[in-house]
């Protein structure tokens, strides 16, 4: 177990280290490219297997005699463990397992979960399949956190954004491949097996992708060990995102509104995709392969559009406005699917673009309203609430389909989108009453940032000019964070600091 606090300040290259895995040293491009590839494959297996039920919905219902209400347990039980794990998973990686062991454990859980799921299918025992999805859920979401942590370890600065974007795109590609491959695979396997045995065999074959993820986790472990020996740094450095639930008291209203959109918007996307195949087959009279393809359009488009739209939102700013536009556009797409028989390709393409737009604009908003050291908690809360919502609403969606049909299901999703619409309008109003940060254009935001840092500089000069600077080290002067400066000022005048700001240096009080 590695001690994450250990920082070696003078790395020494060991000349006698033999590279037996690749021909490049860890600092070089091709080694980091290999690591990037492995990090992407890490997430591929779990995203591929997450939507297996959706791609085979009609076979699940037919072979296992399931109602829609029962079918959605496969999704809601994936989400239940993640209500808690969003907080605990990152903590476990930071403090208990370390990044390497943690990743391997989570990848292993994903493999076990999918195997139990497949075994349940092979034996025709639905309860076993739900248990398998539960185990898969424990591993899956935490594996995504581990993936992000690896990225932060290996890549810094501007390239980190690109790496995150690439990881997400790869994940989306995994989902897309799932939707387009599972139907032909089932068709091929059904020549040799029938009924739920056929389903089980198909799921076992799908489990090989999780094995792939486990293998890349193991290879990454080896690579990361070498990186640590050569470069020597194993802590995540200054971007520690510790989760402290007590931080919640300090969160502004805008954060809770953003979390509200995180929940209500995604509730109209993910449960819809889970139930989409049979909806497209029945309402639009599509055959299973086409229905799966249309269902996967959201992910295909997201794989391509997310990085591009992310760039756009970075350049242009005005996040809150883009969120509003996405919600309205998704409302329109769902309305098309509910109230017309118009070709669903149109609506699903629209939904894919809106979904990518919202993801690119929404998550950075959390970083805009929450200070760095509370971001871990903030993201954890947003994810936890989202998973809670998904777990509950997916079950409800299944009941609605059984009792009220697909029109009522669409009305249900439209209702959630109306809630998201309401919240995004509220964000615009409240934000414009405040400092307007969430809806600034990129140039306005830059101007605002320079203004703030100028104020911080002014404050610091005043502090410097007041004398008695003997205990100020050069590193203090390099710190530009206004939080840091404010805290130091407060501690000098003897004001009590909040608990979580106590770590780090203590300062002598001013006379």
């Amino acid at each position, binding site marked *: 177990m590695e001690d994450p606090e250990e920082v070696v300040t003078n790395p020494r290259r060991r000349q006698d280290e033999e590279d037996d895995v690749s021909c490049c040293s860890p600092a070089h491009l091709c080694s980091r490219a290999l690591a990037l590839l492995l990090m992407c494959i890490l997430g591929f297996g779990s995203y591929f297997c997450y939507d297996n039920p959706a791609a085979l919905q009609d076979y699940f219902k037919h072979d296992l*005699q399931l109602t829609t209400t029962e079918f959605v347990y496969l999704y809601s039980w994936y989400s239940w463990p993640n209500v808690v794990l969003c907080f605990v998973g990152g903590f476990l990686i930071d403090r208990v397992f370390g990044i390497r062991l943690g990743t391997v454990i989570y990848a292993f859980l994903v493999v076990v979960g999918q195997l139990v799921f497949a075994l349940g299918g092979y034996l025709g025992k639905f309860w076993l399949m739900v248990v398998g999805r539960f185990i898969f859920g424990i591993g899956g979401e935490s594996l995504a956190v581990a993936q992000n942590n690896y990225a932060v370890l290996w890549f810094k600065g501007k390239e980190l954004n690109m790496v995150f974007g690439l990881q997400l795109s790869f994940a989306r590609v995994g989902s897309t491949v799932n939707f387009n491959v599972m139907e032909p695979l089932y068709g091929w396997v059904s020549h040799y097996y029938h009924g739920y045995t056929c389903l089980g065999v198909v799921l076992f074959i799908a489990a090989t992708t999780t094995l792939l993820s486990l293998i890349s986790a193991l290879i990454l472990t080896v690579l990361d060990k070498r990186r640590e020996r050569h470069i020597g740094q194993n802590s995540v450095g200054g971007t520690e995102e510790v989760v402290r639930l007590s931080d919640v008291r300090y969160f502004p209203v805008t954060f809770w509104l953003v979390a509200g959109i995180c929940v209500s918007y995604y509730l109209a996307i993910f449960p819809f995709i889970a139930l989409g195949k049979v909806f497209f087959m*029945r309402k639009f009279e599509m055959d299973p392969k086409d229905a799966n393809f249309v269902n996967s359009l959201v992910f295909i488009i997201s794989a391509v559009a997310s990085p591009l739209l992310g760039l756009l939102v970075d350049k242009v700013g005005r996040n809150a406005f883009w969120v509003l536009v996405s919600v309205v556009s998704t409302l329109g797409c769902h309305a098309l699917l509910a109230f017309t028989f118009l070709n669903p390709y149109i609506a699903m393409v629209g939904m894919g673009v809106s979904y990518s737009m919202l993801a690119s604009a929404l998550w950075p908003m959390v970083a805009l309203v929450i200070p760095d050291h509370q971001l871990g908690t903030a993201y954890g809360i947003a994810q936890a609430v989202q998973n809670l919502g998904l777990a509950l609403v997916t079950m409800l969606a299944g009941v609605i389909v*059984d009792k009220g049909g697909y029109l009522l299901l669409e009305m249900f999703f439209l209702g959630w989108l109306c809630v998201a619409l309401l919240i995004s*309008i509220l964000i615009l109003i409240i934000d414009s009453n405040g400092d307007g940060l969430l809806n600034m254009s990129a140039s306005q935001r830059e101007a605002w940032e320079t203004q703030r840092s100028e104020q911080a500089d002014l404050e610091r000069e005043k502090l410097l000019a007041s004398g008695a600077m003997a205990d100020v080290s050069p590193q203090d002067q390099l710190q530009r964070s206004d939080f840091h400066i404010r805290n130091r000022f407060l501690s000098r005048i003897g004001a009590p600091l909040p608990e979580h700001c106590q770590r780090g240096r203590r300062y002598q009080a001013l006379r």
Partner: protein
Amino acid sequence: MLWLTFVAILIVPALSQQDPVREIHWASNPGCPDNFTRWDCNETQILHVMAKGPNDTINYLWALYSKPALLMAVTEPEARLQIDWNQLGNSSKRLIRFDPQPTYSFGLVLDRIIEFYDPLDKADMTQANSSIAWDCRKFSWTVKDVTSGVENLRVELLGNNYENGSKIGNVSVVLSAFGSDGYGPLLPHMQHSNNASQVEITLENLETSEDFKSEARFGLQLMVVDSVPGEGMDDVLHRRSLDDEHTPGVFDINTLQTPEVRNGEAGGYMEWRPVAYTSPVRAIEESTSAVHYPLKNVSQAHLKGTLLHDFYGHNLAHVLVPQSLNISFGISEDGFYDVTKYNAWTFTMAYGQPPKDKFSLLVIMILAVGLGLPAVIFVFGGAYMCVKKSRTRRDEPLIN
């Protein structure tokens, strides 16, 4: 503004004026004389159901003798029924009459049940390798149950003992007469007006032929005729419906229209959803398709001995156009009939114009509140923001 009009378009039909409610009365074997020999007058073989409204009465005659026949006749409110009992089934005169004459009538006979061999699993009766007909005359039909209320009536018929037991199987026919608008009590919850009756036919435990090796499917042949001379009915009209609230997962409705209905007037029609259920628990997972085939003109000889022949008399041969409507149950890869040995299909048989689709109040409310609330807040919030901005702009020149 736009969403207000949109909501209004949805609300108006939902709250539209309901039709007047009809009272249902019924009689078994009406006017059956004591010396009647064909069957005991206590044994119901003819049911006369009257749905009495303010302007007219819809009479349903449901008969079990020979083949099950359903007749719907629209008469004046106080019309009387006269049956020539002693010549029933033996004459080509009009033995069953209303006084005064009905303004319109529409009749249906359950002619035969067709068992067809489908080794290629196409679920298409016209492409079957071979088929066996179960003549409905050879079933022994009895009335199992009658449940009546002020505004509705439910009669359960049972046909069994085919050819004195040579084949096993039951055919259950549940007939309902409605006096008010609504939806059928069981799936597929067919929408009906106050001029409607509903027929549910269930083929239960029918013994399939061994030659067909459990790859058999069943279908029905119905004979239909209406009282307008010369014109037969067009093919079945298929339309798509947005609202699957009542039949989750089914977005189609089929209508058999008589020429009057097609021309926008009041006439007879049959409506059904192209779905048949393969289990008494009617879930969408336990359903299969109900496929219809083009109408064919038939000779009136098929209707000999049934109530329709006794009602229409020789008009059936010379003036009216009886046609056959075939329906088959099954879809590829559903395992054929033998997997559950249960096929249930429902249709409404009614007078007037087919009911229009309308969204339920729940749908309208969700739209109204869901879109209205954000719109209101957007408008007021935007106005508030504009007012605030103009106020700060006015204040600025005051700051030096």
